[in-house]
């Protein structure tokens, strides 16, 4: 199955490092470089194996009678090694096996797949036999992938793989809107947002109910979030019909989109300043008279640079408001423009299939050297992708503090990874553990009941 981001690991490492005899090599000159040796050290000392294992076991690593010891080993992992070597259907018996494999192979990327009905590495025993024995996914988190390249048509500051603080707010909007909807509309609680390491964010919904969703249900949730449709050729990307917005969209608009559009996106992306930019916005207005009116007005005028975007937006809004009385077509035009420039754009395919693999948190992105750290949705406005810990930075921190304290502090606690791992444990793993316990107990009870009253085959 497809792997997200597709970006293969390339050996962008600078000069080969002198490693022999020196357990802590000095960092390279540039800060954002990725180095296989650093990766090795990272895996040796910082990667949180135990926490990852705890997460993915969902309580089955405990001592409760309802625990299924095979659960963790039925999870598929995949490694992307140096030189684009790709290993699939990997599985591990426990945390230490997983750690040994990662340290030995030093994968540039680790992906997490579904929990299958049998150990993935033993799947061939099941695909050749006909009838019931089929290798298939048993559970899998509900996942989302938001990638900045899907917004290229509406950002002018960067394009492609680059990001900056002008366009990053689009990701902030995506997190806020989707997180709120997942909680308020769908009732999910255990939601982990992770920086993808370069230009986007991933979302892992880990509630038991989410893990049991079928492909069809996942599709329906992805479609629920789909507002921007249409291709390059279609001027209108968003069609909000009807005299009112669905409550979910209305909430997104009033709580997030309007504000971010008018205060950040409009200005950061200079949406109305240049002819090229405002042309794109006007293309979304389905009324020629409004379009030409604005075009003419903005052609000739040249207000002070600071205010041009907000002033022009006010003018456009006013005209559209007046136009509402003319007919239905302009009724939702203001909202449509705002939605087109801000509403989250998801990669549908990632969410729809249980067997889709997604990059694991705490991986290091080979192109940027940045760690895929969790993002707190309650504080996502403060997240700055430019300040995410990088490999060289972490190595530096490890070096420095090695000699300084000599305390019994763990390695990760001494680095800037500390807050991320702390957040992962406290805000995500702990609440999840409580749910796991309750879930194990109730399903165990249910199983006992069923076995007690089981009839011998119904017709």
């Amino acid at each position, binding site marked *: 199955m497809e792997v997200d981001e597709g970006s293969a690991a390339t050996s962008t490492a600078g000069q080969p490092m002198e490693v022999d005899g020196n357990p802590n090599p000095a960092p390279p000159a540039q800060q954002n470089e990725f180095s296989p040796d650093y990766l090795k050290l990272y895996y040796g000392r910082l990667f949180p194996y135990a926490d990852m294992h705890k997460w993915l076991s969902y309580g089955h690593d405990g001592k409760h009678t309802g625990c299924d010891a095979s659960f963790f080993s039925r999870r598929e992992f995949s490694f992307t090694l140096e030189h684009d070597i790709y290993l699939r259907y990997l599985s591990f018996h426990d945390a230490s096996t997983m750690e040994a494999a990662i340290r030995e192979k030093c994968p540039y990327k680790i992906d997490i797949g579904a929990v299958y009905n049998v150990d993935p590495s033993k799947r061939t025993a099941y695909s050749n036999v006909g009838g019931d024995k089929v290798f298939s996914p048993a559970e899998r988190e509900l996942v989302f992938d938001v990638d900045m390249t899907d917004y290229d048509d509406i950002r002018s500051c960067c394009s492609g793989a680059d990001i900056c603080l002008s366009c990053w707010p689009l990701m902030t909007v995506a997190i806020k809107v989707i997180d709120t909807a997942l909680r308020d509309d769908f009732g999910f609680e255990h939601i982990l947002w992770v920086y993808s390491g370069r230009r986007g964010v991933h979302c892992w919904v880990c509630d038991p109910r989410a893990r049991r969703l079928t492909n069809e249900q996942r599709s329906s949730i992805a479609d629920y979030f789909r507002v921007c449709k249409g291709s390059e050729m279609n001027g209108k990307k968003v069609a909000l019909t009807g005299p009112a917005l669905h409550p979910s969209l209305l909430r997104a608009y009033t709580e997030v989109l309007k504000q971010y559009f008018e205060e950040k996106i409009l200005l950061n992306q200079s949406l109305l300043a240049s002819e090229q930019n405002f042309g794109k916005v006007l293309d979304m207005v389905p009324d020629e008279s409004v379009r030409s009116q604005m075009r003419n007005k903005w052609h000739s005028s040249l207000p002070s640079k600071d205010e041009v975007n907000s002033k022009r937006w006010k003018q456009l809004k006013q005209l559209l408001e007046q136009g509402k009385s003319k007919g239905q077509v302009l009724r939702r035009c203001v909202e449509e423009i705002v939605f087109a420039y801000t509403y989250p754009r998801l990669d549908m395919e990632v969410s729809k299939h249980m067997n889709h693999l997604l990059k694991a948190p705490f991986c290091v992105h080979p192109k940027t050297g940045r760690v895929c750290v969790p993002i707190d949705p309650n504080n996502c406005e403060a997240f700055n992708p430019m300040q995410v810990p990088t490999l060289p930075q972490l190595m530096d921190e490890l070096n420095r503090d090695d000699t300084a304290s000599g305390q019994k502090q763990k390695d990760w606690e001494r680095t800037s990874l500390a807050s991320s791992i702390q957040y992962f444990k406290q805000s995500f793993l702990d609440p999840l553990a409580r749910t796991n316990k309750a879930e194990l107990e109730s399903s165990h009870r249910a199983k006992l009941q069923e076995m007690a009253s089981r009839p*011998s085959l119904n017709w």
Partner: protein
Amino acid sequence: MEFKVAGGRRTSFGDASDVGGVQSRLSFYSNSSDVDVSLEDFEQFAMDRLRVLKGIEEGRTRGRKAEEIDALVVDLWRKHMRTPNAADIATKDMVSHFVLRLAYCRTEELRRWFLAMESALFRARFRAESPESQRKFMEDQKLPYKAISSTEFESVKEKLGQVARSLNQPVPTADNTFYKVPFEEVPELVSARRVYLQRGFAFVPRDQLASIVVGQFRARLSKALALTNRLWTSTIAVEEKDRLTPIVEALSMRYLGADYSQPSKGFVGLQDLDNLAKNSFPLCMRHLFFNLRHEHHLKFGGRQQLGLFLKGIGLKLEDALNFWRSEFTVKMTTEKFDKEYGYSIRHNFGKEGKRVDYTPYSCMKIITSTPGVGDHHGCPYRHFSQENLRSVLEDQQLSSRTVDAVMEKVRNRHYQLACATTFEAIHGCPSDGINHPNQYFEQSRRALQGGGQAENTSSSNGLQSVPLPAHHDPPHPVERGTLPIPGP
């Protein structure tokens, strides 16, 4: 659950348990109860239910809308599922369902058909129930669908109104009942944002509720069918091979319409045959007839298929003998004809041997026959090569668009629909469906004679609850086994 069929040992299909939903007339058929059933009832109940299901199929292929199907079902149910004692209807309902489960679990195609028809039946019956009865049913089946209280309605009224307005629909009032349903149950509504979601629950208006309950019905029946299939192949088929198995296997192939054993509109004369053949015979019989005229001979299969058909349209025995004799004696002596062929013609009319009046073949029987070298019987839409079929159709002056449409249906193995399309092109009026060559003939006569009062034995959907006469198949090997359903 056990079924005790009279005259046999108990056939065990599992544990007896509570009869689900007998008080409410609806059922998910999750379990059946212990009942004693006679062998005749075993078969008869199933056939009656099959008539209902085939009626539904016919309605669907005619493109009837949902409301029309609902009315059709009420009709069909009343007509076929009656019992002398009203209290027995529930038993008949259950027994017939479970017997048909056995009959239709055996192949993927059978299962799919049964699932589709039973779901449509269930939907219609559910929608026909009062809201109170629906509520009770959902409660009995432990479905997690709760109607919301008026206080809860007040609290979400505004949001429900927003959803309605976003869909250009009228705003709901306190009269609309809304149900709180886990969002997993309504993916289509979630997908299109046609429903208000709150903490994992969808607020579904009452008119959407049927879809959800039907979804449950479908899912359960689908699982049950797979289970039944395993059980059938592993144990039941063999255990019951002398008793229930033949009945079950025949059920899925049973033709249930009028049998045309007696001609409906009086008799036809010899002199009319050529004219009738040109205008009103279905393609299979045209082909046989004109082949006979041309070759002055037909092999056994052809003689049976055409001969019985002619009997069905009203050819008397004497005329039949003269007809066949006049053709055959072009190539042989009269004595030889009388000796070798006359007997079997008289036999078909029930004048020889065990004196059974044989019934003309239905489309199902003809489609599943296996014409060999030198044979001309069978169904042209099925048995002719594409080029041959095309040229035969073009000979009938059909437009190339019609021919293409027919060939398309043939490609999709809808032979009877192909025949109906030909009928419609030739007669310029719609057909009521073709399940039997004599039905084609009668529809054709009606259309050509200005569509007067049809006092024929077939009802408009080709199905009727005639008590079937002792239905004997002529001595011709009948193909048994897992065969696909006739029709679309």
